[in-house]
């Protein structure tokens, strides 16, 4: 190292446990507490510049960094999977800056940070689910102005939200929102559940776990305390319904779970497998077999030879 390079390396600050300084964590925890006290309300907070890009989970990372302790076990998923690159990257970040235990097992985790999915396994009172949120404002695409949307929330003026659903039905015959499907929390605030598929919406209702939502770029935190009513918006004669898959998981035969479509060739060959990779592995470990699972075992042996 040259003298100058040494100066720079020596002069740079060392990072605190879980990256953020304690004052910042306290500020974020205050925002979280306020969010818990007013379920579904978006609390502005002084989001920090994080060492990963805005839009890549900086809100979720700040929330996790503020609540995680040395005894916690962290699970990070993206699209339901622990091994998607951004989930891997965020997990590695916390291993590096907080040296916490990590797991892929939903049941073993005390803090689960997620992007786009809620685990299939029901969560428990000893767990916290942290969502990464890109756009926290459910009214944003109906009204782009923050000053106006805040007023609409304050005065509970949500007619516009139903106008959107009405338009869907008038145009398509049914509600055409498939993800980031708006919900009413505790009979008061309309909330964006983050871009989870609406398949996951029912899991938020009366959930035993604390659910926290962090939007870094938009500088908002909100929360659903345990056992809170979360209702997906709908019409009486066009009730909310979730997507149903016609076939079970090709690997573990699970039904009533969310599936990823996997393209097998360029001739329309495809298979459907659990989006929640941990759920799928657990089921297979317990002996459940889908119609392509045998082949998989065969392929593995073949590869081994």
């Amino acid at each position, binding site marked *: 190292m040259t003298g100058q390079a040494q100066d720079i390396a020596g002069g740079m600050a060392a990072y605190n446990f879980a990256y953020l300084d304690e004052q910042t964590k306290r500020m974020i925890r205050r925002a979280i507490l306020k969010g818990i006290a007013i379920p579904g309300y978006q609390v502005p907070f002084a989001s920090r510049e994080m060492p990963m890009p805005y839009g890549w989970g900086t809100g979720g990372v700040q929330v996790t960094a503020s609540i995680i302790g040395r005894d916690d076990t962290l699970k990070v998923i993206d699209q339901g999977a622990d091994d998607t690159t951004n989930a891997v990257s965020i997990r590695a970040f916390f291993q590096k800056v907080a040296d916490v235990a990590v797991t892929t097992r939903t049941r073993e985790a005390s803090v689960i940070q997620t992007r786009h999915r809620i685990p299939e396994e029901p969560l428990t009172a000893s767990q916290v689910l942290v969502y990464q949120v890109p756009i926290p404002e459910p009214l944003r695409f109906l009204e782009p102005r923050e000053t106006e949307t805040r007023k609409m929330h*304050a005065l509970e003026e949500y*007619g516009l939200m139903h106008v959107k659903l009405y338009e869907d039905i*008038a145009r398509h015959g049914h509600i055409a929102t498939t993800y980031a499907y708006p919900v009413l929390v505790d009979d008061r605030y309309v909330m964006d559940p983050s871009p989870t598929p609406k398949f996951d919406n029912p899991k938020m209702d009366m959930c035993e776990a604390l659910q926290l939502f962090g939007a870094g770029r938009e500088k908002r935190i909100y929360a659903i305390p345990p056992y809170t009513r979360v209702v997906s918006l709908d019409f009486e004669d066009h009730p909310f319904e979730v997507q149903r898959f016609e076939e079970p998981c090709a690997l573990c035969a699970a039904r009533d779970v969310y599936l990823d479509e996997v393209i097998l060739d360029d001739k329309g060959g495809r298979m459907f497998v659990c989006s929640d990779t941990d759920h799928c592995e657990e089921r297979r470990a317990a002996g459940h077999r889908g119609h392509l699972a045998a082949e998989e075992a065969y392929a593995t042996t073949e590869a081994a030879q």
Partner: protein
Amino acid sequence: MSGPREDDQPLLSVRGLGKRYGDRVGCRDVSFDVWPGEVLAIVGESGSGKTTLLNCISTRLEPTTGAVRYRLRDGQERDLYEMSEAERRLLMRTDWGFVHQNPADGLRMSVSAGANVGERLMAVGQRHYGNIRGTAANWLERVEIAEDRIDDRPRDFSGGMRQRLQIARNLVTGPRLVFMDEPTGGLDVSVQARLLDLVRGLVADLGLAAIVVTHDLAVARLLSHRMIVMKDGAVIEAGLTDRVLDDPQAPYTQLLVSSILQV
């Protein structure tokens, strides 16, 4: 039917209302009452303060002085500017209507006609798609818009249709008081006549009270029971429409009547 006792009392009372824009006077010391089911016209030349006054009494613009009291459905009389913003906004989307001169200001231009009419119903908690759509279709018919246009957007409507759609959107929650600022302003004469007919019919059928701003004395004559005449921000004459137009007292009103109604 509500008892006669209630009709004895004004729906809206304006007292000593004034609005200044810096040094300029928008309107000053205006007082009048509006009774249930009554149509009041506010007339006067351009710049006389009509729009200012209408906006002040409909809580769209905070007055500098004076009070506006409104009788709620439960008979209670409230000062509009002492109500919370939430209460005022609820009033505006349930008990009141506001018809803008330019329909684009009062409509959602990129949302279907059905949703435009249905929005207020959804805002007050209706959650049955079929019923909302049925009511919207019904209202489109009442304002003479063909039912098969229900899924079209106001962008694709003519000026007259847009104005009729705006009226339907306002009346769907059965308001008791409707404010209109030059409702026929941007329309050509034959379209104006048809719209005025329609408004007159609706107001009579529904027993609505209405406050209509216009600079056109013919509109006032056709629609209103009573009228007030404004000049330089102040009311210079008020009375039954026929009386004011046939026997104007104030010299300015005389001038106005003679210059316009000569035909």
